[in-house]
């Protein structure tokens, strides 16, 4: 079975993340860049499927130069090779461009059976790329699965809804997006990290992908979605502190009523 897993490098959720008011894009401090945890879970599922069915796992990522670290991490976890879509014009690509470019990149991998991705990234949080990919690649889509199996070329999986569980079935090839529950990611050992250094990562730029699109004055692809402005969240006030004089219960009750909370 040949599986492609989409990997994204994102700012660490534990770090102070921000949007640059000048470029209108997410500030990506190199020290705080990590592999998105949902990507690791999707990859873990792929590795489990490879153990079950044999075959190959390819990690694919679109990102700046340093995103290669996340691809190496994927290789250290056990993927066989990587594909890095990297070009200055890709910076700040919107969802449509991201899906278009990823589709072009994925098309360079022959006979893919499964394309696995997380259901949404922790930075952009669009959650739309997997579905768009399925349409662009003319494949079945099975999104937001919390579990699935593949038997004789047929995928059956589960999607949790608010009021129940939906059973999904699709014939390969399928674009699958997964939720957190899909698998617990393993930890790479040092041996895995050392072996990963010898595995191949293919870099594809705009020319290799033969994508044609309008570029803005700074050389970046103009998207279907354009960020017009960014406003910082107003600072949260620290709240009121008072010492109990026996009447604090009343004060709290008054406050809750005034705020319309009770």
């Amino acid at each position, binding site marked *: 079975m040949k599986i492609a897993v989409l990997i994204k490098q994102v700012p660490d959720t534990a770090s102070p993340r921000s949007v640059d008011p000048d470029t209108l894009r997410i500030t990506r401090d190199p*020290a*705080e860049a990590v592999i998105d945890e949902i990507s690791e879970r999707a990859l873990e599922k792929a590795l489990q499927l490879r153990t079950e069915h044999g075959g190959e796992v390819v990690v694919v990522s679109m990102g700046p130069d340093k995103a290669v670290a996340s691809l190496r991490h994927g290789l250290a976890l056990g993927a066989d090779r990587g594909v890095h879509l990297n070009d200055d014009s890709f910076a700040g690509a919107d969802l449509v461009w991201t899906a278009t470019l990823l589709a072009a990149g994925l098309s360079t991998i022959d006979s893919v059976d499964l394309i696995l991705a997380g259901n949404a990234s922790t930075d952009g949080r669009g959650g739309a790329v997997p579905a768009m990919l399925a349409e662009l690649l003319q494949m079945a889509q099975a999104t937001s699965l919390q579990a699935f199996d593949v038997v004789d070329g047929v995928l059956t999986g589960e999607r949790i809804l608010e009021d129940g569980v939906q059973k999904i079935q699709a014939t390969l090839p399928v674009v699958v997006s997964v939720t957190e529950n899909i698998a617990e990611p393993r*930890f*790479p*050992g*040092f*041996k895995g*990290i*050392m072996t990963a250094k010898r595995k191949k990562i293919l870099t594809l730029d705009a020319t290799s992908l033969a994508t044609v699109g309008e570029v803005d004055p700074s050389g970046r692809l103009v998207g279907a979605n354009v960020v017009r402005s960014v406003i910082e969240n107003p600072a949260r006030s620290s709240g009121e502190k008072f010492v109990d004089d026996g009447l604090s219960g009343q004060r709290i009750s008054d406050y809750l009523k005034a705020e319309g909370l009770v």
Partner: protein
Amino acid sequence: MDYDLIVIGAGGAGLAAAVTAAQAGLSVIVFESETEIGGSTQLSAGMLTAAGTSVQRELGVEDTAERFYQHYMDLNQWRVLPGPTMAYCEEAAAVVEWLKELGLELPAQESSSAHEPGLTRAGVEDVWRGHVPKDQGYGLVQVLDRARRSLDAELVLNTRVSELLIVDGEVRGVIADGVEVTAPNVLVASGGFGQNPDLVAELYPEALGAGTYGFSVAAPGSRGDHIEFARQHGLSLFGHGWGLLLVTASFQRYHHWQSGFPPASRMYVNAEGRRFMDEDAPYAISPGILKDNDGFAWAIFDEEARLRLPSGYADWNSENILDQVALGLVHRDDSLPGLAVQIGVNARSLETSTARFNQLMTEGVDSDFLRHQTLQAKGTDPRLAPIENGPFYAVKMVPGELVCTHTGLQIDANARVQNQFGEPVIGLYAAGEAAGGVLGERYVGGGNSVAHALTFGRLAGLHAAARVAAS
């Protein structure tokens, strides 16, 4: 060689060394056996004992490294190694300033506990040396790791170093996950052996004194890998039989910040039924006092005190005391003589001790054990309610909480390790609980271990950097 410095362990000591070495331009890799960084440092209050810091100066506290050294050595009866101990006393303040530069928040304000940022009394020292950072040990580890990442010092999790490679008295590297990794400098910062019962039995048997009431609060990775390295290569160990035990209730299983605190109005009596110590004596000295008294104390308190226990703590709450009575771990009787019979102490002694306790503590001047001074240092009112409203309770207090183990690879003032013949192993360093010679039988107070770990981690990093620069 693959790297300039290999660090074994990503706790406080290892991270301090990695950041120091990386700041000096060395290529560094840190191997951490567990799946997360921080070791025992992350679980701690992150407190640092140091003398002559900017925090002390801002609060008008005059202190010197020499004064710190005098206190440290006196408390340990001069049985720790003067060379590295002086280095610790001298360098700890610089480490505090270095951490502040890295972003650690250490406000210049007075603190009355290990959970309140600021300057506090660490143990029994006459000048306050306990520096409590914001966000505790977790915050400290985060500051160090953020610096590590920005300096590109590598970190590998889930990888236990199984062997040190030493050839002709010189370090060559390590074996990690079956892979040989070479470096001219290796720092052993793998923590203590609090999670290794066999090593505890062998090297710190006092910790077994609490029997089934004992528990360890060391991080999971504290398995004493440094002892194995010592045996593989004939390295010198120092500190046999030493460590830090905290006095805890028989039914306690967690550190007091989770378990809770016994009532202030409690009296400790020994097997003879006599009050024998300041109940709030800092843990710098309390385990030693218990050792002189058959290794335990009975904490005596009354119904009034039980009902006043605040809710929210895991073990020391008013309902759990009754549960423990039902389980037989806490004794309860309507009268003090009845209680004395239950716990097997002399009734006359118990009544005499209680009467005197009530007389002294209600006035707030404990002329026998000077407990009022300890309470005042903690910011507590020294006048305590008397023990007089039955039923009465007796809880056995034992040195049950194993915090640190002090048997480690013998180091010198530069954190360098030597073999059993006293010959230095070139390029080999140790820091934290994996290092021996400075952590003695008496723990100086809150912050002793963390400050010691970071100081020698930093000294090792500086020395390794000097070696690389000279070569």
